[in-house]
């Protein structure tokens, strides 16, 4: 059963990636205007360069051949050449990917822990002042534009209070220093962007945790646990939480696309040298191959993370079959 579940989920993930590949490809074909003229929209390109680009993309061949070439290129890690960096897109993205991962994972971990904790407290003190405050906090952070929260954080903690650096991932003077010197500095730089992204996610997690827990606490098996003589703390830990985690994991999985989106914004504000910052630059230079590559990589990362969360889900909820 478990193996079948694993393969069926893997199959789904691969199918999703395939659909994304197809979409990514056609995104640039079905749009108004032919691809060449679209590429020419970049004013800095000469006619010769345009011709070169057309050949490079194989635009003179029929579409199915083009699609085949695209797929073959992809499997060999060739995502095309960036207009502005004049380098292969794959390499540029890889350089930045780790920075984004660091930010995203740190923020997500913080948000899950903080959100769960806040949700539990709110549910436990349902209707009390703590609950109302938590609810209000969750709604406000949810309603804030992510980048704006980032701007406020920079303005307050970096510019005014000078507690944290305003931007980047590393103090420039340390760029040649050893790893153990750079690590604390990078973590220092990570605080503001990490907290910003975490705050945006945290509110919704807290809300879900609270509602899930409140629902679970009215279930009959909670009464059973109490009747068995379990203490309130044990009821919460052993019976309520494992069940309340199920909707939480669903939300986290569904939210991954949103997390990436948030990360891209936060990176823009904090000049964090990840994919978001890269995307901002690519947009400014209308660098389509680069944009396409970023879209593809983030999409695949999200699908991969979703696959992992499906496996976690199976672990949390034995009722899930296929």
């Amino acid at each position: 059963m478990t193996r079948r579940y694993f393969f069926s989920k893997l199959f789904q993930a691969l199918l999703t990636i395939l659909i994304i590949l197809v979409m990514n490809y056609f995104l640039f074909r079905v749009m108004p205007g032919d691809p060449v003229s679209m590429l020419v929209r970049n004013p800095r390109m000469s006619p010769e360069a345009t011709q070169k680009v057309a050949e490079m993309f194989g635009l003179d061949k029929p579409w199915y051949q083009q699609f085949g070439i695209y797929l073959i290129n992809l499997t060999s890690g060739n995502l095309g050449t960036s207009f502005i960096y004049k380098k292969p897109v794959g390499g540029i993205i890889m350089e930045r990917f780790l920075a984004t991962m660091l930010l995203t994972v740190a923020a997500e971990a913080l948000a899950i822990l903080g959100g769960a904790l806040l949700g539990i407290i709110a549910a436990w003190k349902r209707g009390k002042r703590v609950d109302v405050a938590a609810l209000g906090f969750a709604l406000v952070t949810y309603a804030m534009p992510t980048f704006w929260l980032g701007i406020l954080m920079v303005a307050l903690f970096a510019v005014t209070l000078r507690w944290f650096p305003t931007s980047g991932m590393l103090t420039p003077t340390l760029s040649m220093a050893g790893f153990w010197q750079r690590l604390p500095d990078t973590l220092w730089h990570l605080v503001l962007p990490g907290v910003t992204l975490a705050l945006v996610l945290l509110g919704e997690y807290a809300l879900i945790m609270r509602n899930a827990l409140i629902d679970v606490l009215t279930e009959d098996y909670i009464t059973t646990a109490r009747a068995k003589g379990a203490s309130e703390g044990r009821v919460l830990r052993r019976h309520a939480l494992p069940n309340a985690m199920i909707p939480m994991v669903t939300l986290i999985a569904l939210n991954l696309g949103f997390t990436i989106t948030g990360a891209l914004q936060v990176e823009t504000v904090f000049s964090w040298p990840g994919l978001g910052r890269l995307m901002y630059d690519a947009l400014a230079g209308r660098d389509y191959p680069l944009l396409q590559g970023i879209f593809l990589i983030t999409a695949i990362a999200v699908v991969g993370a979703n696959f992992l969360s499906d496996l976690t889900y199976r672990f949390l909820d034995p009722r899930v079959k296929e």
Partner: protein
Amino acid sequence: MPLLDVQDLHVSFSMRQGMVRAVDGVSFTLEEGESLGLVGESGCGKTTAALSLLRLLPPNGRIDSGKILYQGRDVLTFTAEELRRFRWKEISIIFQGAMNALNPVQRVGDQIAEAIRLHQPVSEKDAGKQAQALLERVELEGRRVNDYPHEFSGGQRQRVMIAMALACRPRIVIGDEPTTALDVMVQAQIFELVESLRKELGMAMILITHDLSVLGDTCDRAAVMYAGQIVEIGPIETLFQTPCHPYARCLLRSFPRLQGSRSMADSIPGTPPNLIEVPPGCRFHPRCPEVMAICSREQPLLLERGPRHSVACHG
């Protein structure tokens, strides 16, 4: 001294519409090894009364007054820790819907073992072995300790629930409609199982149901409840053969039987009162086929009519 002595119990719920007096002056006793039925329509307060014995009311419920004496000690005065040790060790419950009463994400063996380990200093391994033995006792395969609740059928889940209820060898088991939603055949199996285990272990039982006739197989005595109060309580034979309260008679007749005539009994007219504003006098009087003038004025007291048989009726 009876094993359990409930005296003038009052329980209320605060609802948006007002205070619901779900249990309004209920008294009964339970002897060691005795089996008592608690019968009534839905909403009459029978489940609330039973949950109160373990102080397991939902957050909006409150025990307003009364005494629940277990072996002479009032359960309502227990500290949190005393209460925790009292629950399941002394009184356990078999709930109505076993699907919801079992934790869906925990193996049934672990759930049974938890009940044991909460009250006895045994190792996890030994508790697991005991859980397995308990499952076999309720005629399930022992290896199913590793299964999750959704892998059992409705009847089997109820067996798991029974195994769990017996885990600490309590003195009293409460069955809250343990066979509702089960087929008649499974229902009979469950009652037979409970009966034999109860006899074997010498436990007392409180069985809650809306169908008086199922009590014949299991109970020594029964109490009929209406609108938060007991209207008649007595030996099961007496209730079946010569029920005194008009409501008890109506309730008994409203389930058609295989034996006897093929005619259908009349329904009880009207609906049970809402428990926010109960009718004055006897609560049953607006629906009573034998109503008298006094019934709307004075509330009848639960008075003894025969050996261990009491009725609350002016008639």
